[in-house]
C-alpha cells in the first residue's frame, strides 16, 4: 500500500526483494496495491485464491478478513518476537488491540496518530495560550476567530475523514466512545452527549469554520500552509506535509476532558498474514524480517506515521524532529483506538471507520443544525443498522 510518496513504495519493494530466506523458507515478491478501492481489490483476490501471503492494508482490514476466515493468526510471530527482543522494543499499546479471542490478527508496524497542532505566531497574535483542556480550546478558538483566522481546523468533505476522527476522539477524550468494553454499541450516554454538546458549542461560537463540513484535506492543507488557521487536529508530521518546517507549526499537548480524562486517538497500521499462503512458516519468517527493516523508512523519512518500536524513536533521524519526539512522549502512552472503551478492534470497527453512520455523525456536528441528543440517536441507529 502507498504509505508515502513513490520513494516509500520503491523502498518497500527493495526491502522485500532483498529478503534472503533461511532454510526451506520461500522468497517473497512485492506488489503495490493502490488505496482506491483497496478493499474490493483484496476481497476479490482472496475470494479467487489469488491474494497475497502477507500484506499491509486498511486499519481494520485484518479484523474483517479474520471474521471471514481468511487471516492466519500471528501468535507464533509474537512468540518469536518475545525471544528476539522485538516484543520488548514495542511502544506501549500498539500490540494489544490485535489480540482477539482467536489470536493476534495482525502485527503493528506504524501508528497514525491524531495530533493537535497550533501555529505559534497566530496564537501569540490572538493573545491566548496553547489549549490544554476543553475550556481553553473554546477560548482559543474564539480568540483566533476574532483575528480573522479559523479557530479549530477540521473538515468532513469528500475523502476527508479528519472530522470523523476528531468527533470520535472527543467522545473518547470524555471517557465515552462508541463501544462498551465488550464491544457492543454504546453511543447514547451522558459522556458522549456532553462531548457532542461541546463540539456544537465550538461550531456555534464560530471557532470552527461554518464551511468545515465541506473541507477536503487539500483545503485544510492550504489553511495550515497559508496561516489561515491557528489550531486543529491532523496526523503526525503536519509541518512536513504542508511544507512549513520553520518551527511555527508546533505539536500541542493532548487535551484534558471536563471529567479529567486525557486521551488521544491513534490508528495502528498493521501487517497481516493470510491463510492462502504457499507456506505459513515462510510468511512468518518474512514478517519478522520485514519488521526488522522498518527503521530504514524513518531514517529516510519515507512514511507519515510514527514508529511502533522504541529503538526507532531513539534514532538520530527521528529525534531531530522535536514535534515527533513530543508526540511519542505525550500522545503514545495515552492513545486509544476506535475500539475504545474496549481494547481489541473487531470487524465492526471497520464499519465504524469508513461507514456512513460516522460520516453523517461528524457532518451533523459540523453543520451545527441539530441538537446533541438527536445527533447521537441518529448515529446509534445508523450504526446498529450497519454492524452485525
Amino acid at each position, binding site marked *: 500500500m502507498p504509505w508515502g510518496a513513490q520513494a516509500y513504495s520503491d523502498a518497500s519493494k527493495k526491502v522485500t526483494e532483498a529478503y534472503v530466506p533461511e532454510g526451506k523458507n520461500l522468497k517473497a515478491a512485492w506488489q503495490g496495491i493502490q488505496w482506491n478501492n483497496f478493499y474490493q481489490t483484496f476481497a476479490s483476490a*482472496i475470494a479467487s485464491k489469488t491474494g497475497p501471503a502477507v500484506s499491509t492494508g486498511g486499519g481494520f482490514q485484518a479484523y474483517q478478513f479474520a471474521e471471514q476466515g481468511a487471516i492466519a493468526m500471528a501468535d507464533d510471530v509474537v512468540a518469536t518476537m518475545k525471544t528476539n527482543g522485538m516484543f520488548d522494543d514495542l511502544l506501549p499499546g500498539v500490540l494489544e488491540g490485535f489480540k482477539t479471542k482467536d489470536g493476534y490478527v495482525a502485527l503493528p508496524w506504524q501508528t497514525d496518530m491524531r495530533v493537535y497542532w497550533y501555529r505559534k505566531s497566530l496564537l501569540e497574535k490572538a493573545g491566548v495560550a496553547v489549549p490544554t483542556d476543553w475550556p481553553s480550546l473554546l477560548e482559543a478558538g474564539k480568540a483566533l476567530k476574532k483575528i480573522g483566522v479559523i479557530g479549530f481546523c477540521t473538515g*468532513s468533505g469528500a475523502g476527508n475523514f479528519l472530522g470523523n476522527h476528531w468527533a470520535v476522539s472527543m467522545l473518547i477524550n470524555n471517557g465515552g466512545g462508541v463501544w462498551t468494553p465488550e464491544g457492543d454499541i454504546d453511543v447514547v450516554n451522558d459522556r458522549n452527549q456532553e462531548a457532542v454538546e461541546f463540539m456544537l458549542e465550538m461550531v456555534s461560537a464560530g471557532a470552527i469554520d461554518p464551511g468545515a463540513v465541506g473541507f477536503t484535506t487539500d483545503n485544510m492543507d492550504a489553511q495550515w500552509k497559508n496561516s489561515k488557521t491557528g489550531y486543529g487536529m491532523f496526523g503526525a508530521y503536519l509541518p512536513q506535509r504542508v511544507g512549513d518546517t520553520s518551527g511555527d507549526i508546533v505539536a500541542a499537548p493532548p487535551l484534558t476532558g471536563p471529567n479529567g480524562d486525557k486521551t488521544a486517538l491513534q490508528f495502528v497500521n498493521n501487517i497481516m498474514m493470510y491463510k492462502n499462503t504457499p507456506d505459513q512458516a515462510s510468511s512468518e519468517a518474512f514478517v519478522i524480517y520485514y519488521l526488522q527493516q522498518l527503521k530504514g523508512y524513518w531514517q529516510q523519512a519515507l512514511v507519515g506515521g510514527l514508529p511502533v518500536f522504541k529503538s526507532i524513536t531513539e534514532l538520530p533521524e527521528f529525534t531531530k524532529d522535536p514535534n515527533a519526539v513530543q508526540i511519542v512522549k505525550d500522545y503514545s502512552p495515552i492513545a486509544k483506538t476506535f475500539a475504545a472503551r474496549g481494547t481489541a478492534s473487531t470487524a465492526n470497527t*471497520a464499519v465504524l471507520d469508513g461507514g456512513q453512520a460516522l460520516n453523517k455523525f461528524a457532518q451533523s456536528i459540523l453543520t451545527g443544525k441539530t441538537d446533541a441528543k438527536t445527533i447521537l440517536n441518529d448515529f446509534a441507529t445508523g450504526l446498529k443498522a450497519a454492524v452485525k
Partner: protein
Amino acid sequence: MTTLTGGLSRARRGISPGGHGGARRRTSTLKAQTRRTFLGMLVPSVVLLILINGYPLVYAAVQATHDGSLIDAGSFVGLDNFSTVLASGAFWRAARFTLIFTLVGVFGSWAVGLAFALLLRTRIPGRGIFKVLLLLPWVVPIVVSSTAWNWLVATADSPVPRIFEALGLGSPLFLADPKLAAVLVCVFKVWVSFPFMMMMSAGALAAVDDTLYEAASIDGASSWQQFTQITLPLIARPTYISWILMTVFCVNDFPTIYLLTTGGPVDATTSLVVYAYRSVFQDFQTGPGVAVAFLMTLTLVVVSVILYRQIRRAHVE
C-alpha cells in the same frame, strides 16, 4: 416500376417469379442453410454476452438474496434485503435526490445543449473554436473537473463565494449547506453533460431542412413559432433518445457526486448509486447494497420503456 414492386412483393413472401414448386424447395433449403449460418455466427457473440453480462447479473442476484460479504455469499435470505432497503428512510431520501438530480441533469443539460446547438447553427465567427471549447466539460476527466469545482466553491475564500460577496449576495458555502450542496451537484452535472446534449441536438438540427424555415418565414411565423412548430417536432425522436441516454447516465452517475461531495453533507447529495456503493464498500452490507442496485435497474428499465414508446410515437407522427 410495377414489375419491380411486384417482384419485391413476391420476394418478401418467398415466392419465386416462376412460382414452380422445385424452385420453392430450393429457396426453402437455402433459407434454412442461411439461418443455420446466421445462428452459427451469432452463437459466439451470444455466449460472450451471456458470460460478460449474464454471469455478473446472476451473481448479483445471488448476493441480493443472501446475507454474505464480497468473499462469501452467506445464507439465503429471500427478499429480506429488499424489504430492509425499502423500509429504510435513507433509501427513500437517496431516491428523492436521484429523481431531482436526474430531472435537472436531463432537462437542464438538454436545454443548455440545445441552446448552444441552435446558437452554433448561426453563422457566428469562430464557430469551430467555440464548438471545441464547449466540448471541454465533457472531455475533461471528471476527477479533474470536480477538483476544479471544489477549488471554485469550497471555502469562503474561494472565487465563487467571493464573487457572490462582491455582488452583495453574502458568502454562500456551497459544500457546507445541504441545500446549496444539492444545487451545486445538479449544476455540476448540467455543466458536465450539456456538451453531449449539444452534440445530439446539433446532429438532429442538421437534418432539418432549411427551406421549412424559409417557407414558415414567408408565411409570417415568428422565431418562437418556428422553434416550437418546426424545430422541436422534427428533432423529437433524437431528443427522446438523448433523454433516455442521459437518464441512464444520471441515475448511474457515481463520480460526479462522489468526487465533489461524497454524498454529503449529512447525506444531502446521496443518490441511489452512491448509497449502494457506500452500503457495499463502506458499511460492508453487500446484500442490501446490491438490492438497491437491482431496484435502480428495474426503475431504469421502466423509464426507458416509457421513453421508448414516446420515440415510437414521435416516429409515427
